[in-house]
């Protein structure tokens, strides 16, 4: 015990001497068995696909065909349009909900209740068939048009998907707003910010940290949800794949082509989400150390 500190000496008897012992690592027998079984199953699956009646040449032939790429483009356009509408509505509804104005907050609660309560596919079809009950729309005397002319598959799909998405997103936004400490609201008020400026500059940027992961999830969900629009003849990727396989009967091959593109887009979005999370996590310790 030759230390310069004034610590009390600690007696080390022989039974406490462990430095010279050999360290035997823990054996993970269970893990090895599980891994072997899973790998075997995976190999069987790959084999099944390779010997199955899949004409891989069709897959590669259609992967970059113009009809499929056009469908992919329409899928992306629909995702962006419907999600933008969903987020805008989500923010507006969430702010109405916490506004303290009983009329606005009741409307917000009613909105979420109605549009979360019906399947998205059904809502889409409702919009598409709106002409059955409202043959014309507009402001009487000012302008008017036939509903069938404006309620195209695109418009019906954006409304159906975006409005029902808004109901979900508003709950995400609301939880984000609630996650911001009340001291932040007070600090913003004391420097003379108006309600809107406070939301935009102080509250929403902090709420984003909480909101981005679930909204990222919703965007990814929306990529796939747009396939519902095939039902009302919107030419997204699944719809176009169907048109092709109705003609050439290569059903599975074309479904695989569509799957590939969905997976590709979702992968790109996951990477993007990582960077967006990092941006909104700035100034926060936990995110910082994780990067």
């Amino acid at each position: 015990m030759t230390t310069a500190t004034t610590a009390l000496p600690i007696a080390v008897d022989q039974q406490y001497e462990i430095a010279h012992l050999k360290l035997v690592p823990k054996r993970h027998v269970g893990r090895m068995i599980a891994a072997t079984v899973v790998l075997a199953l995976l190999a069987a699956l790959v084999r099944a696909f390779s010997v199955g009646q899949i004409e891989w040449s069709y897959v590669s032939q259609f992967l970059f065909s113009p009809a499929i790429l056009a469908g992919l483009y329409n899928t992306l356009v629909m995702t962006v349009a419907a999600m933008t509408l969903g987020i805008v509505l989500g923010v507006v509804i969430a702010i109405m909900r916490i506004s303290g104005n009983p009329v606005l907050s009741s409307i917000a609660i009613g909105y979420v209740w109605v549009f979360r309560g019906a399947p998205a596919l059904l809502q889409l079809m409702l919009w598409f068939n709106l002409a059955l009950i409202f043959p014309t729309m507009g402001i009487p005397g000012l302008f008017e048009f036939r509903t069938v002319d404006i309620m195209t598959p695109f418009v019906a799909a954006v409304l159906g998907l975006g409005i029902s998405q808004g109901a979900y997103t508003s709950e995400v936004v609301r939880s984000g707003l609630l996650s911001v400490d009340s001291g932040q609201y007070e600090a913003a008020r004391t420097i003379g910010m108006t309600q809107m400026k406070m939301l935009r500059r102080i509250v929403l940027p902090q709420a984003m940290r909480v909101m981005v992961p679930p909204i990222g999830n919703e965007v990814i969900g929306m990529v796939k949800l747009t396939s519902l629009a095939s039902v009302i003849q919107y030419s997204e990727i699944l719809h176009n794949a169907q048109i092709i396989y109705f003609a050439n009967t290569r059903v599975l091959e074309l479904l695989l082509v569509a799957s590939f593109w969905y997976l590709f887009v979702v992968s790109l979005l996951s990477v993007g989400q990582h960077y967006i999370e990092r941006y909104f996590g700035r100034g926060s310790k936990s995110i910082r150390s994780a990067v």
Partner: protein
Amino acid sequence: MSKNILVKAIDVTKNYGHFCALDKVSLEVTRGEVCCIIGPSGSGKSTLLRCINLLERMDGGGIWVNDELVGYRREGDNLYQISDVEISRQRRRIGMVFQRFNLFPHMTALENVIEGPVHVLGEQVKDAEERGRTLLERVGLAEKANHYPSELSGGQQQRVAIARAMGMRPNLILFDEPTSALDPELVSEVLDVMKDLAASGMTMIVVTHELGFARNVANTVAFMEAGKMVEFGLASEVLSAPKSARTAEFIKAVHS
């Protein structure tokens, strides 16, 4: 009203349901002076500060800052509640420093300081930044300008919060227990900044348990208890020769 009175609170009353948090509280602060408010926890000190900058709406009485009635507009025999935009305008000239700092965590120290000047007062970013750096230098944090609040100690965060309040060029700064959330060794760095600020002629109302600070810096001291203004007078008199037995007891208890 005398030209030198900056804050005048007359019979301010505030109820939370049936609970009376402020019971006809009056206070007067002269321009360029420091008023310390002391008193036990729950006596209504924070509530009074929050009424002054309209974070709470009072139920009775009136507060004038710079001869302007806070929160209301007088027209003939009527008092009208002013609009939210008007409230924001009134708050601009009243800074506030909180017990828990409440810095904006997604902004650096400098961004915190220039947020109000740029986005509320409409100053040019370049000018605001230059002044923001000067303010940070004044609170001894020039080299921390680009640090986020999470990278600063409590004392440093509170000094940034003071710089942020000063950024708005306030007539008055309210401090609500600015050192109560700090580790003991960090208290003096914040009090020193506040002392400098007082010496520069800033009008300040400071809720604090630091009687030493009150003794050295305050011009007037108010002692509150159970929503009432028990004693209000010159600092030397209230702290050294209190008229009320309750004030004397409280001062003794804090010192022991």
